[in-house]
């Protein structure tokens, strides 16, 4: 609370700005001359490109409590989105090499027995040839991962300093399988940690969200729009009760919630305008049957 008794997270009329941003984006894409958009979606999907900019998400998103959150959280942040690049491959290559080195230096077998009141252990180590074979295998795997053409990387940093209620980050790395000319199916690994602090009808609401899991994304590039359908299978959700129970702290009337839905879905569209401008719109739900939705708009530049 500040001196006037207002919470930092109280509604400050940002919804009008949200609406304006969304309308501006829809307008740009709808009324832009066709030649300014020519085949930009295929180029964006199939070529090395980096998109970066700001985003704004309003609604019951999976990280801010979904349908358990009585309020309408606002998320603002910064996005870094790479397609057909190197980040996912490089990180995977490092993981493979570390795992390979650990495997190569681990003992091959161990047996122990007792005799005359003493305990004996016999350890068999891998031969140099076996170590070399493991390392060669992991080097080949690492090389393949790093040089894989179809990979993408998506990093979102949520910040309250930009006016939202949400703080944290989410990162997804994908490897892609292109098919039927204009489609690409992607799957990979993702992690994230986000918290939401807001106020609704005089009640403080605090939501904590964690994400370790696998994203799956289906992309379709028509001439102008890159359409996608995505789910991020969150393993942390399996460790929690699927019906998250909000806890109301009685003395301060604060609602505390830890909620990570297992299969949030997202459908969206992105487009490049005049080569450089990048816009994306998507609708997400923390679960198909929850009936809750969040709308996200992003605007930035393509490099």
């Amino acid at each position, binding site marked *: *609370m*500040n001196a006037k008794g207002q*919470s*930092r*997270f109280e509604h400050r009329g940002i919804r009008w700005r949200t609406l304006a941003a969304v309308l501006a984006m829809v307008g740009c894409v709808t009324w832009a001359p066709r030649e300014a958009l020519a085949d930009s979606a295929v*180029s964006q999907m199939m*070529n*090395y*490109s*980096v998109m*970066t900019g700001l985003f704004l998400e309003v609604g019951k998103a999976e990280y801010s409590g979904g349908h358990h959150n009585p309020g309408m959280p606002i998320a603002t942040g*910064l996005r*870094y989105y*790479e397609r057909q*690049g*190197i*980040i996912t491959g*490089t990180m995977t290559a490092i993981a493979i090499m570390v795992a390979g080195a650990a495997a190569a230096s681990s003992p091959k077998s161990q047996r122990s027995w007792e005799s005359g009141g003493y305990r004996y252990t016999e350890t068999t180590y891998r031969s140099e040839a076996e170590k070399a074979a493991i390392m060669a295998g992991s080097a080949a795997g690492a090389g393949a991962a790093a040089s894989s053409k179809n990979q993408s990387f998506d*990093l979102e*940093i949520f*910040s*309250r300093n930009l006016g939202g209620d949400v*703080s*944290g*980050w989410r990162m997804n790395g994908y490897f892609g399988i292109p098919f039927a000319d204009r489609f690409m199916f992607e799957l990979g690994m993702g992690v994230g*940690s986000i*918290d939401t*602090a807001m*106020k609704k009808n005089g009640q*403080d609401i*605090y939501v*904590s969200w964690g994400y370790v899991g696998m994203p799956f994304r289906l992309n379709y590039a028509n001439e102008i729009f890159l359409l996608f359908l995505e789910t991020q299978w969150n393993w942390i959700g399996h460790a929690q009760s699927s019906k998250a129970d909000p*806890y109301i*702290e009685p*003395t*301060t009337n*604060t609602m*505390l919630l*830890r909620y990570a839905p297992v299969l949030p879905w997202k459908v969206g569209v992105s487009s490049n305008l005049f*080569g*450089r401008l990048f816009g994306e719109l998507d609708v997400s739900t923390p679960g198909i049957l929850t009936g809750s939705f969040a709308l996200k708009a992003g605007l930035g530049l*393509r*490099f």
Partner: protein
Amino acid sequence: MFISSSSFWTTSRLRVVPLWLLAACLLSSPAVALDRENRGFGLDRAFAVTGAYGFGKRAGEPGQSFVLRAEGAGLWMTTPLNNRGGIEGGMELGYDGFKDTNRDAALSGFLWDFWMGFPITLVEKEEGHEMLFTSSLAPGMGLSGQHAYVYIKGKIAAKIVPKVAMELNYQWTPYTGSVIWGTDTGPHSGFAMGFLRYATYYALNEDISLMVYFDWRQSNIDDPRTTTADQALQQFTSEPYSSSAFLPITRTRWDNNYRIGFGVAF
């Protein structure tokens, strides 16, 4: 012939040539592998080795450090819109003379920091194979004695007069992008960090520049809002909860650190 025809190569300068050659052989192999158009460090370099003296405060306690720093960047990928992308990375090793008051440094007394990032150039200007201006943005991650962190780094570099280039870097680690060692089982504990560096390069020739830099790191450990809220969540039903999660951010313990460095860029 080259040596005798140049007045630059005096006897005393020639004496240190073996040292430079040794340093170049040991440290510039990544640079040698990069063509001119693939370089991504400074204005038109690939790799640098520098030494630095640091002073300032950590957790309110004064201290100093001596650091050897090696870093570089290669940008060999080009987008259809003509921006270059690739990898940057580096490491720092040295003496860490700060008190480890909170006992959260790994191997305190020994300073270490490794990082890797993925820059993409934003705007560049080139004239006849000579780079005049470059700017880039890079997300990255690192491990140091203090914490594991992610960062976003912005860079601009420009040629100001013949042979002299300047570079300005800003690297930002948000509070949520940092985890202090040994706190994996507790509430989130990390620090926000901003790191500004100004460097000047003086080109001895096409392949070697001298580099002088000054950097200013500002870090902040306290973010009472999220830490207390996380603690409250951990205790959940058993302990009384303070609603300080909803207070404005009050950052009180800023630690300022400064460094002066000197070295060679290849």
